[in-house]
């Protein structure tokens, strides 16, 4: 089962993404689909996939999230889902790290697509870009090195004080819906720093992609747009 949250959040947290953004999100998802297939992974897609509820949790609405998470779990169980492949860090974090606390008996294993790609077969289509890490992937889910492994052939430009695991900044996305001015300020400052390394930035998170793109300072690409198998 492929979690399509990416498509749902690719337009930032807007309810109706622009047609162009929507098409781009679907393109990214198709790329992930084929990259997984070419890596020999077998999986199926749900026709109608539920949102993970990550936003409810991140905003702190605990009771609403707990109720929602139990619904999602029931939905998965009714369809005999045993394992979920995630394509974005927020879904991954909430399913793997948070659901077990709120959903009794949660027994679905959660795998990131980043871990399933065959790094030996990967071709990176661009070079000289900077990596903007998703906070969750880099500092909560242990994927800082994995993202670099997948992108190594493109020779990303690194600076220990801009793209270091402990020093890199956030895109501001998580506070977009509460304090939009703060989100914009954080995104602007992050984009400015990244731009000192390269005007092209690669990210593995749809929220980072949307938030940093909006600054107009850097061109942001999703990992799935720049790798090929």
């Amino acid at each position, binding site marked *: 089962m492929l979690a399509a949250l990416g498509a749902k959040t690719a337009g930032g947290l807007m309810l109706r993404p622009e047609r162009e953004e929507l098409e781009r999100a679907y393109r990214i998802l198709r790329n992930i689909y084929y990259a997984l297939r070419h890596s020999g992974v077998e999986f199926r897609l749900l026709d109608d996939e539920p949102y993970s509820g990550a936003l409810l949790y991140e905003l702190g609405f*605990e*009771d609403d999230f707990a109720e929602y998470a139990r619904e999602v779990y029931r939905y998965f169980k009714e369809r005999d889902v045993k394992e979920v492949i995630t394509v974005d860090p927020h879904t991954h974090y909430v399913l793997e790290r948070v659901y077990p606390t709120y959903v009794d008996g949660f027994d679905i294993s959660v795998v990131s697509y980043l871990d399933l790609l065959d790094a030996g077969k990967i071709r990176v289509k661009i070079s000289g870009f900077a990596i903007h890490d998703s*906070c969750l992937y880099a*500092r909560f889910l242990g994927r800082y090195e994995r993202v670099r492994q997948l992108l190594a052939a493109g020779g990303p430009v690194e600076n220990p004080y801009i793209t270091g695991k402990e020093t890199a*900044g*956030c895109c*501001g996305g998580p*506070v977009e819906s*509460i304090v939009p001015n703060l989100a914009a300020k*954080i995104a602007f400052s992050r984009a400015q720093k990244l731009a000192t390394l390269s005007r092209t930035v690669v990210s593995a998170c749809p929220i980072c992609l949307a938030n940093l793109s909006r600054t107009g300072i850097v061109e942001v690409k999703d990992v799935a747009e720049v790798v090929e198998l």
Partner: protein
Amino acid sequence: MSWEVAIERAVSHSVPNTYEVLARYPHIQQLAREVRKAKEEVIKNLDYYIEEFRKSVERIGGRFHLAERGEDAVETAAKIVGRGKVVVLGKNNVAIETGLRKRLEREGNEVWETDLGEFLIQIADDEPSHIVAPALHMTKEAAAEVLRRRLGMAVPPDPVAIAQRVREFLRDKLLKADVGITGANALAADTGAVVLVENEGNIRMVTVLPPVHIVYDGVEKIVPTLIHALYVANVQAAYAGLHPPTYINVTAGPSSTSDIEKHRVSPAQGPREYHVVLVDNGRRAAARDPVLWEALLCIRCGRCHLHCPVYWALGRQFGKPPYTGPMGVMWTAVTKGIEEAGPHALKCVHAGNCKEVCPVGIDIPQVIHEVRKRYLKNRSKPTR
């Protein structure tokens, strides 16, 4: 000059320095683990260690005062100080937390901050922006301007010149002072000693020159032994990027001498009185809280601020001074409650850098998330 310029300069100076210090002195990380263990032990048995510390302070000839609320602490200190005195302060966040300086001034005392950053904040009638560097938001240009405007000091926007000019001004106050008040980096339960780490030399003078020394800080500063207290000083300095610190001060009681017949008498050259005012103000309740307790592990190095994208953007608007930045949101919750801390917790982007760089491994994002959660839960309760 804007906050953006000030924070950019501070980060570019401090962050590389800290990495360099930690690479040069790798044993510090081991000490940091020991500090966490020692502080965990105290937090789990806080009342026991407060009592042990009290007994030790009294054994060495000091006077111990425990204040449940901030107001009580301020009144206790005001009573010890009295009226019409010259009082010199070492940088002390709990003094700011409880409003100590203004209270002493109301009694007709002449009160001076002696830490350069805090002195600038005092004369500007401003609020601190960082737990270690209170005037972080002031560029050198702004600092020179404040000295000119408030004290008529003509000084160029040069940190060396500013430090020299303020030193001249404060030296006179330090020599005249009746009472010196400091905080504590750590308090040793086994000996009643206070350990203070600094670079300016002001704390050393504040603890030694006036005839009365008051230690004024939170109960969570207690560690089991003097050795642990020295570990805290080393770790704090290193993670603030300032290791070795120029001074580590240990004070265990009033000054004394046993030079005549080996009979120990007090005072000698230093203070004749040693008081410790310990402040609770939410700390003991936090120690019993299943999530908030972790905040009490904080050793106030201020490193989390310099790695936090929200602090970079907002400065002291993230948290309530003196408790700003990631640690500040937790500490606003400890000392002022969820209602005050909640709006700041909502600004957290959960970037996680703070947790990565914390010397004692506090899960700061989780604590802030909990504050946010409780704040929203309180607000969603129906009102009558």
